[in-house]
């Protein structure tokens, strides 16, 4: 299988462990990740908050390059994924927008391809059976809270993926790896990512609620499929603990890090030493390292 791969800006910097894990896992599954040559930023929330045309055009350029190869785009960042879907929809429903966008990008984007998120890719395109075949080490004893966040599943009219209130696809993958998924109610609560810099106090409150619920539900760690959620939840964890006088010490993994670990890759190969919340003691305690 071959699919276009759009890392997005985070995966080359703050989300490098996700990038490394995706590449290793894809190779093991026999998937060719064709990285979109010379891709540009999706514009993230600043683009769609500033203009109605800009976010569509920025994403259309990347989508057009993949469309020329006849490929759909795997977008491991939930924010990029959501913005790409919005661009596909706009180009397909608004003739005037499509003309303006194509004029701006100097390409003829027809809107025939689409974006796929990482959980959707593993669950729907690869399948649990194929993943299970590659498992070398069961992640027994690891209690995982699957955190889908907002943009992977919402709004459902756009993503058409899983369930916006109680999604299950990531849980099924984690279960297949031999880990124990916990039942908890904050799977799709917002972590406030977009306000991380301009309104940091919001992040402390929202992430505190998420970690406090995960801890009360018995989780050792969280798993996400978004570098924005992952960064936001780990980067401010120390400040959150200080602000609310609590202790979490809870790493947040990307889904492919856990898949990679069960495929037999070492934590170092998967970039697990690059977390803001150290993964070392948990990996040692569960005898994964």
């Amino acid at each position, binding site marked *: 299988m071959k699919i276009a791969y759009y890392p997005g800006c985070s995966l080359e910097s703050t989300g490098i462990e996700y990038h490394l894990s995706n590449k290793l896992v894809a190779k093991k599954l026999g998937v060719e990740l064709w990285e979109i040559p010379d891709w540009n930023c999706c514009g993230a929330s600043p683009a769609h*908050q*500033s203009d109605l045309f800009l976010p569509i055009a920025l994403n259309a350029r990347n989508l057009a390059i993949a469309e020329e190869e006849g490929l759909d785009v795997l977008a491991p960042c939930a924010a990029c994924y959501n913005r790409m879907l919005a661009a596909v929809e706009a180009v397909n429903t608004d003739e005037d927008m499509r003309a303006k966008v194509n004029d701006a990008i100097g390409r003829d984007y027809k809107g025939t391809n689409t974006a796929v998120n990482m959980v959707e890719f593993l669950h729907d395109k690869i399948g649990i059976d194929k993943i299970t075949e590659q498992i070398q080490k069961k992640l027994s004893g690891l209690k995982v809270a699957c955190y889908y966040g907002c943009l992977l599943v919402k709004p459902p009219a756009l993503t058409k993926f899983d369930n916006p209130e109680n999604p299950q696809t990531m849980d099924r993958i984690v279960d297949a790896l031999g880990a124990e998924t916990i039942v908890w109610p904050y799977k799709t609560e917002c972590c*406030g990512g977009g306000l991380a810099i301009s309104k940091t106090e919001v992040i402390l409150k929202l992430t505190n609620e998420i970690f406090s619920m995960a801890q009360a539900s018995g989780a050792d760690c969280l798993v996400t499929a978004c570098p924005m959620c992952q960064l936001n939840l780990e980067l401010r964890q120390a400040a959150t603990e200080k602000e609310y006088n609590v202790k979490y010490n809870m790493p947040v993994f990307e889904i492919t890090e856990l898949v990679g670990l069960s495929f037999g890759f070492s934590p170092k190969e998967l970039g697990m030493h690059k977390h803001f919340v150290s993964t070392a003691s948990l990996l040692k305690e569960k005898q994964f390292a």
Partner: protein
Amino acid sequence: MEQVAMNTALKASESTLSEIEHKSHVDVNRCFQCGTCAAGCPVTYISDYSPRQIVKMLQAGMVDEVFKASMIWLCVGCGNCYSRCPRNLNIPHLHDTLRVLSKEKGYPVAEKNVDVFNDSFLKTVQYTGRLYEAGLTMLYNTRSGNFMSGMDVAPGMMKLGKISPFPHLIKGRKEVANIFKKMREMKGAK
């Protein structure tokens, strides 16, 4: 019998309301004020108005108040409201549209730091083709006056080798710059 205009604000803001509806594709008159959006909104607690109130104010023609509201700047676009709305209103996109129009019409920005962050972020994309984190931090900190913003976490990022002090310049950055140029032309042409 001739109808009496019971709400003069509604009459006065007719053209602005129709511009909002045309650009957002959201018909606020469909809303029956159940409040589900407000109940699930993660930022209502720090905002002046809830999403339900924003829609109600538009129904009443209070466009000036809406354009000055902090809610349209604080909305993080999580999509809870839209996902749960029994009338299927795309409120995040309504907020995006209100934010864009509010700036175009010259209303005061209720949450300056959000605006400065967005603008600084996009500047780095416009010139390099991608997000340039170190550049964003420098621009945001100097323009917002929050000189120490991010300095608590920056050493950790550097130590882990996650943030580069240099930008990654894509080859097609002229194409990206052209997208921004077209956007400005359209804003001017409007």
